[in-house]
């Protein structure tokens, strides 16, 4: 190792890092470390000039290892690995120090932050000295895809994949396609027919030669890895008995959607007690049937719509369910057209009219004489039965902010805009495909800004409301984005998977078999004749459980070896 040459590149990231961290001081401190041949800073290391600088230095100084102190490796490790590769260096000779997300962005004391950045960079320098050249493996990419969920997102993804010539298995739990959109009448803001839109989709899906629509089917298992999954789907045989079928797929798109909030959990709205208090979905049913009436069969004179039922509420869900405001306005229009003389009051906290055409829609809603009542968050309206002498069925007491008065709104029919919730089976689904959920139960994307459809499990994508509340345009956009990601891979026929896996040194393995059962991927087999265990590298996901557990230290975790970690430890504690 005597002639090792390490190059250290500290990124300013504009002012993101440089504002708090004295990058020159970091350079000064790492320059003194053994084997450091060059250390410099630059505005944006990930930019073309930044990468060119790294490549030029690799050539000029004959660098064997590169440290980039910058953003999180989860952001740009692939970028800088490619830069090394272009310069002829094995991409695994890179180590990044996270001095942005885990330093400059979270500390306000420049002295402490700089000291920490220097320690993290030193740790990366000491670690990288022990890195070894690793080769990525190339495996076949099965062009088939499993789409979980037959709603608008699932169908959109399936169609793009199928149109490109790939087989799609569309698994749907219920007995029909269309999901939650099938429960709606019209869509905001243009009041298009949801049914027409869906019918077109469903027909294309059902008739598509490349799509296997599996209704009343449940995904039971997903084994394998990206490009090479085997999924077991339980469906119904002709005689009605459950039957399992195994399909080979290369990718999975999770489009399992959402469920609505249970309005009976909010007692002061009287849902479940007052017969004319209905949820948005119950109202859609009325709209689809073409009859807007009270429970008693009369046309309502007063219709009230209440926003944020179960949403933006610390007691239930703190988040906004995104679609309800515009849907409420849609109802105002639909009521006015179904019951021309009716008074419509829209009782809301804020009007979230963020999308294309939505502000216009909001304006048009007031033009049709919808009465808007604004209430304060946490100061909820209360619904009670009206007296026999009142000319309405119920009275809603609202502490209206804009007028500053407490208003009693009459209502014959109240529509509660119930929020979106993660489905009860979201935990099960998450475990099936090995993805994570956030505290509200929505599936987590790879990166909140830059990678909205991929997940931490390579080959598994998420699209639609299952990732977070969203409307139809956004669901479709995500679904088609997921399809595009998959097509980019299937087009190449092969994919590269990480070179990082674990290996058993058979000269050290004593055959104790502590490891065989530990592996969640059943990647460690025991050769009874040789009396040694062996890792099947294609199945290994490099978690390192066996490495830490092996009592002989016979298993090595590539790229996360004990030596590398001890070196890193030394660096952070120096």
């Amino acid at each position, binding site marked *: 190792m005597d002639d090792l040459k390490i190059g250290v590149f500290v990124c300013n990231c504009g002012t993101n890092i440089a504002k708090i961290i004295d990058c020159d001081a970091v350079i000064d401190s790492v320059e003194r470390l053994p084997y450091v041949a060059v250390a410099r800073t630059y505005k944006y290391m990930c930019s073309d000039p930044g990468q060119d600088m790294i490549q030029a230095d690799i050539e000029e100084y004959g660098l064997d290892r590169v440290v980039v102190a910058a953003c*999180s*490796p*989860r952001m740009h490790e692939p970028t800088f690995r490619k830069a090394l590769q272009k310069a002829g260096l094995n991409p695994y000779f890179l180590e990044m120090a*996270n001095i*942005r*997300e*885990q*330093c400059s*962005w*979270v*500390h*306000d*004391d420049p002295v*402490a*932050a700089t*000291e*920490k950045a220097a*320690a*993290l960079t030193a*740790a990366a320098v000491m670690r990288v000295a022990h890195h070894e050249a690793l080769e990525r493996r190339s495996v076949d990419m099965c062009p088939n895809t499993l789409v979980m969920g037959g709603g608008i997102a699932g169908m959109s993804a399936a169609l793009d994949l199928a149109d490109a010539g790939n087989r799609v298995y569309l698994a749907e739990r219920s007995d029909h396609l269309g999901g939650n959109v099938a429960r709606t009448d019209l869509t905001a803001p243009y009041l298009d027919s949801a049914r027409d839109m869906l019918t077109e989709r469903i027909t294309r899906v059902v008739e598509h030669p490349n799509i296997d629509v599996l209704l009343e089917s449940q995904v039971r298992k997903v084994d394998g890895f990206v490009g090479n999954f085997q999924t077991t789907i339980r469906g119904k045989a002709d005689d009605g008995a459950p039957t399992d079928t195994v399909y080979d797929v290369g990718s999975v798109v999770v489009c399992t959607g959402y469920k609505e909030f249970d309005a009976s959990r909010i007692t002061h709205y009287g849902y479940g007690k007052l017969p004319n208090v209905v949820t948005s979905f119950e109202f859609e049913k009325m709209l689809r049937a073409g009859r807007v009436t009270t429970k008693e069969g009369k046309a309502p004179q007063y219709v009230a719509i209440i926003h944020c039922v179960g949403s933006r509420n610390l007691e239930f869900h703190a988040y906004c369910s995104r679609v309800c405001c515009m849907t409420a306005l849609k109802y105002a229009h639909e009521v006015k057209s179904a019951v021309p003389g009716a008074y419509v009051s829209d009782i809301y906290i804020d009007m979230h009219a963020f999308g294309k055409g939505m502000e216009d829609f909001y304006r048009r809603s007031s033009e049709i004489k919808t009465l808007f009542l604004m209430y304060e968050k946490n100061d909820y309206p209360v619904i009670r039965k009206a007296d026999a002498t009142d000319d309405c069925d119920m009275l809603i007491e609202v502490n209206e902010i804009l007028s500053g008065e407490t208003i009693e709104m009459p209502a014959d029919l109240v529509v509660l805009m119930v929020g979106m919730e993660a489905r009860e089976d979201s*935990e099960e689904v*998450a*475990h099936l495909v*090995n993805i*994570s*959920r*956030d*505290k509200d139960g929505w599936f*987590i994307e790879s990166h*909140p800004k830059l990678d909205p459809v991929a997940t*931490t*499990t390579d080959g598994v994508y998420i699209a639609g409301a299952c990732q977070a509340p969203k409307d139809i345009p956004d669901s479709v956009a995500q679904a088609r984005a997921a399809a595009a990601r998959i097509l980019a891979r299937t087009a190449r026929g092969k994919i590269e998977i990480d070179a*990082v896996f674990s290996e058993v040194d058979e000269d050290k393995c004593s055959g104790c078999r502590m490891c065989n059962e*530990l592996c*969640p*991927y059943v990647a460690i087999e025991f050769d009874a004749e040789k009396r040694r265990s062996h890792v099947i590298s294609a199945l290994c*996901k*490099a*978690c*390192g*459980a066996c*490495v*830490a*557990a092996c009592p002989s230290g016979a298993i090595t*975790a590539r790229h*996360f070896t*004990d030596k590398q*970690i*001890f070196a*890193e*430890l*030394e660096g*952070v*504690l120096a």
Partner: protein
Amino acid sequence: MTFQPKIVGFLCNWCSYTGADLAGTSRIHYAPNVRIIRVMCSARIDPTFVLKALHDGADGVLICGCHPGDCHYSEGNYKMMRRYPLLKSLLADYGIEQERVRLEWVSASEGQRFADIVNDMTERVRALGPSPVKAALEADLAER
């Protein structure tokens, strides 16, 4: 000069390291005393790492993994969960104060939680003072 503890954090790539990154993207500030070492899974953490960290001068060691049931590798965090009480009992026998080594589950969306844990642990370790290990071993040698 207030004592600034040096705490080494072993964070798993998929949940806790991502959660720590989220604290960053959300600009949630916390104490600068934790230096993070990334591993793929909390199951990779050999108890030797913790012992070496203390030997090399760490005042505290924080281990973070995914919440039980949510491990990216299915059950890696359970492996860490099983090692942890044994490690604690070993550390107790070696006279290391319990608060110096801590295991927490942090998910990818828990940036605030990560920050809170770092702040809490920093104060607890600060109250304990510097770890006795390095100084004690050097003092032993000095008497010979």
